[in-house]
């Protein structure tokens, strides 16, 4: 069952599907089998000193890793839309990286465009070692097939900007330019993000302050868009506990220019492990204690025989936050090899703003 030990922050799975797990039935087991032990992979331990641009690149010693961008945009007519771009790396076995086709790395890419009336997505797979997919730290470039996240001339290692982001599927494509004037933000405790009360954890940093401009083309019709975007970088070898079945993950842009990252890992016994970081407009990141976070589903949407909580009440009394979130498109279902829900949301209450929600394991 070792092969099943794969994980990603959100969807691990490309790998899992690729390795022959038919996801639907084995979802819970897939997660349950994940990462109790590092098993020859490098372990995630507290106190890591991050260095850039090296940590923008890949960490093949770790089992799993991802480069994740979500963008909340508005088009020229003022309509809201969202864009997702994800590249996952997963190693099928530990040890020094093999060259050529013998490489044990497998890459998976997901891209999606969401509007109020539609949700389009696409998926890519590639083997490592031959150049079909990969990530270079310098000059920074992450790619799978024709999809790219590429550092433009004058890329600043501290802000990871400016970036160019492109992806295309059969019925959509986009090209965005991302800029940022504030440095990367370490999540969790100085980049060490605990995923349970035990040792499960990952290295995790973000760039939540991207501004985005570009163009989305749907069914051959291009529209100019602009807005804000959020980059997550995370890698680990054992990020989930065996009794954790899925998660609900929020990245929120508050109108106060503050940012909020929140996640809740659901456990077999019905309890949750919640965590988050409060990021000030200046980029100072403070962990939020699990006990202070209250996340409650308020409305459900039935999609493909699943019942998904697409509206939430979130309360963090210590920060004076009490908001209600709603999805831009409740049917933002990613029907990929390993399916999940991911889409833009907006919220109101003590704070207003927008963000992205990802829900897996339903």
């Amino acid at each position, binding site marked *: 069952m070792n*092969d099943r030990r794969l994980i990603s922050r959100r969807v691990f799975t490309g790998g899992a*599907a*690729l*390795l*022959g797990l038919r996801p639907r039935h084995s979802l819970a087991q897939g997660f349950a089998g994940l990462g109790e032990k590092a098993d020859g992979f490098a372990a995630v331990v507290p106190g890591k000193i991050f260095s850039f641009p090296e940590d923008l690149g890949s960490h093949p010693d770790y089992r799993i890793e991802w480069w994740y961008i979500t963008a909340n945009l508005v088009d020229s007519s003022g309509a809201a839309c969202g864009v997702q771009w994800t590249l996952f790396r997963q190693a*099928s*076995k530990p040890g020094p990286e093999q060259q*050529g*086709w*013998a490489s*044990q790395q*497998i890459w998976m890419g997901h891209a999606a465009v969401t509007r109020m009336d539609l949700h389009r997505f*696409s998926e890519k*797979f*590639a*083997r490592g070692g*031959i*150049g*079909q997919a990969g990530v270079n730290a310098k000059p920074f470039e992450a*790619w799978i*097939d*024709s999809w790219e996240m590429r550092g433009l001339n004058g890329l600043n290692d501290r802000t990871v900007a400016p970036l160019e982001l492109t992806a*295309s*599927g*059969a019925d959509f*494509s986009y090209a965005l330019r991302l800029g940022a004037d504030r440095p990367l933000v370490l999540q969790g405790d100085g980049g060490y993000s605990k995923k349970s009360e035990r040792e499960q954890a990952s290295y995790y940093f973000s760039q939540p302050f991207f501004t985005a401009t570009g163009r989305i083309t749907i069914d051959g019709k291009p529209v100019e868009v602009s807005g804000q975007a959020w980059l997550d970088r995370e890698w680990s070898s054992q990020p989930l506990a065996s009794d954790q079945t899925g998660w609900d993950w929020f990245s929120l842009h508050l109108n106060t220019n503050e940012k909020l990252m929140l996640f809740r890992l659901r456990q077999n016994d019905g309890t949750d492990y919640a965590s988050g970081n409060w990021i000030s407009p200046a980029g100072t990141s403070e962990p939020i204690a699990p006990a202070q976070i209250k996340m409650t589903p308020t409305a459900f949407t039935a999609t493909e025989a699943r019942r998904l909580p697409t509206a939430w009440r979130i309360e963090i009394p210590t920060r004076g936050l009490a908001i209600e979130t709603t999805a831009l498109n409740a049917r933002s279902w990613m029907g990929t090899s390993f399916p999940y829900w991911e889409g833009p949301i907006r919220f109101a209450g003590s704070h207003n703003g927008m963000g992205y929600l990802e829900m897996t394991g339903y």
Partner: protein
Amino acid sequence: MSRIIWILAVLLSHWRRHPMQLATLLIGLISATALWSGVQALNQQARSSYDRAAAAFGGARTPMLAGKDGAAFPQRLFTDLRRAGWPVSPVVEGRLQIGGRSFRLLGIEPVTLPAEIGNAPAIGKGNSQAFIAPPGQTLAAPETLSELHEPEGASLLASNGASLPPLHVQPQLAPGVLVVDIGVAQRLLNMPDRISRLLVGPAKEPRLPLETVAGDRLRLVAADAESDLERLTDSFHLNLTAFGLLSFFVGLFIVNSAIGLAFEQRLPMLRTLRACGVSACLLNAVLLLELVTLALAAGIIGLVCGYLIAGSLLPDVAASLRGLYGAEIPGQLTLKPQWWIAGLAISILGALAAAAASLTKAARLPILVAAQPQAWQQQQRRWLVIQCGVALVVLIAAGGCLWFGDSLLSGFAVLAALLLGAALALPALLELALSLGQRSARDALVAWCWADSRQQLSGLSLALMALLLALAVNVGVGTMVETFSRTFITWLDGRLAADVYINASDDARANEIRAWLGQRPEVQAILPGGRAETEINGAPVEILGLPDHATYRDHWPLLRSANNAWVRLRPGDTGFVSEQLARRLNLAIGDHIDMPAPGGNWTLEIVGIYADYGNPKGQVAVNFAALTRRFPNIPRTRLGLRVAPGEIPALMSALQGKFGLDGRNLIDQATLKADSTRIFNRTFAVTTALNSFTLGIAGVALLTSLLTLSNSRLPQLAPLWAIGITRRQLASIEVLKTMSVALITTLLALPLGLLVAWCLIAVVNVKAFGWRLPFDVFPLQLLELVGVAMLAALLAALIPALKLSRMQPANLVKVFANER
């Protein structure tokens, strides 16, 4: 409901009283179904294995990118194209020697393999990690495993010493194919970072133009709905189908005569039933029910027989398909449910078609008209005229097809129309012959014999038609096969001019061997050979290099040539083309062809046309030196040797010892000839077998017709007996009559058969294979066939005659007592 059962019971009682008729009907249906479905089973088996071969990761059914000159290209192009938006997946292909056999090795990349490609889902998604990660898997068909005598999980060792991943059974694969991960294939085939072709998936994403990414190094090959093998083997299967169809019709002839007789004999019964109050509608429904039940029962038995026939013919079919086209067919029959359903359907439809006339007649049966059991024989004159007219029309159609047709199908149409026309004309011709005989008769009994034969004609004509068809086809096919085998052997003698053939593992080895041979006194000449592959109009063409040597000039058989053809071949601007290619491209001596070659097109003037039997590809023969100039990369590993007679075995064993050559790469002329002849003989083994089946069925048709007739002929024979002719005399007269009618039929079948042979040789063969054979007549063979036909007729006539000679006089007397 009980009414239906009672009517059915009454109808069936007829069969109880006439078991022979029932047997005839069933035999007809069974043999029709058996041969037809047997042939279908063979075709289906072959087609499904072509599908398997084609589906093996990008046969012709997937669009692909191939190297400009068909050669492998750098792997870098794969990643460049992926990054430019092309949904391509790399494939590496080559041959691998394992345990003395050559296998097709395919290296695939399951992660990018388009899910739509043939058996991809089983590998792409099923367990790709086990396939990719060391030790990986070698996927092979179950047949390949049993051929290798290896269990699943065993690791094979290639002849070059490389080891393969453990074997894993994949039933969708074609036999003879091994599939491994692309990285493994590159290692095994020694093609590091090289790719044979790229499969293009259906994903529709924006992509850069091909030229922008790959320049002119790759070309896009569009998907082809039909696989290469299917196209190549089409003619072979058409042959089989034609035979199946012929047998089917011969079988239906039997059914038709049996049912016709049964219905006529049951007319009084039907009339009585109607008079008892059974409605016409119900009666017809029950008649139909009876027929369908019988057809179902016979169909099931026929299918079992068809399965057995197919099973026994399959080894020959498989061998000839492998020998002729390199198509691998598994030796175990696997049949789809559709085959069974189609077989039953054809049995029922055949029975309905054969019974159509009788059923309509019964449906229109006027209730009050007295039944006339033998009425069907009374209208024969009118029938003969109509039938003769139809025959004429059909024969004219045959002529039209021959004149205007230009395809294999039209060739078969000519054959079919010719046979049908001849069969339809047969009763009229027999009638003519018999009436001539009658006129010449002096003796009263002889005159009666002729007259009675004429009267019998309509009852026998269907069986005689079947005999005519079977005999004609037999003559035709026999003549063609005999012509072919003679032509082929003469041709082979000229073609295999060298005494010993060597194929070295590589050029360096070939040079070593050549150097060593140069010092052997018994070696009179070393003739280098080589081949290149190219394409003309999208079809693959071989280019053969012929060294400028007397061996070739003196022996190589040319069908047509220009003056000094061999001298003109030397400079390299002329070539010989194979007959197939010449026909396909409509080429003649003096024409020019353009062939793609690495350094640009190579234009050749045609100075000769030669026979190249058994090669599905077109071929061009050029001077060897010129070939190596235009295709510098071809392997120069083939050597032909002229060796002093008597020294061949010693030289071969010396070569074996010195260079480790074995039966696959060192062969003498005699063995090669024997192998080729064996393959060709097997090609026609199936044809010959089906041919004999057809003749057998025709014999059965004759027998059953005579048997059914014998009962109804008592009224004709009884008066003769009454005026003093003994039963024994009567019986011998009956035999003689049957024999004479059969003889006339057989004699008519001979010219028809020769016509069929001419059609096969001059029309069908040319279209199917691209070669034309000289037309020869083999009188001994014809004589033999006449003997067989007469023997069949004798056997068929003997049983009813014996019955007659032993008939109780009381039965004959009854004819007078039991007046109708």
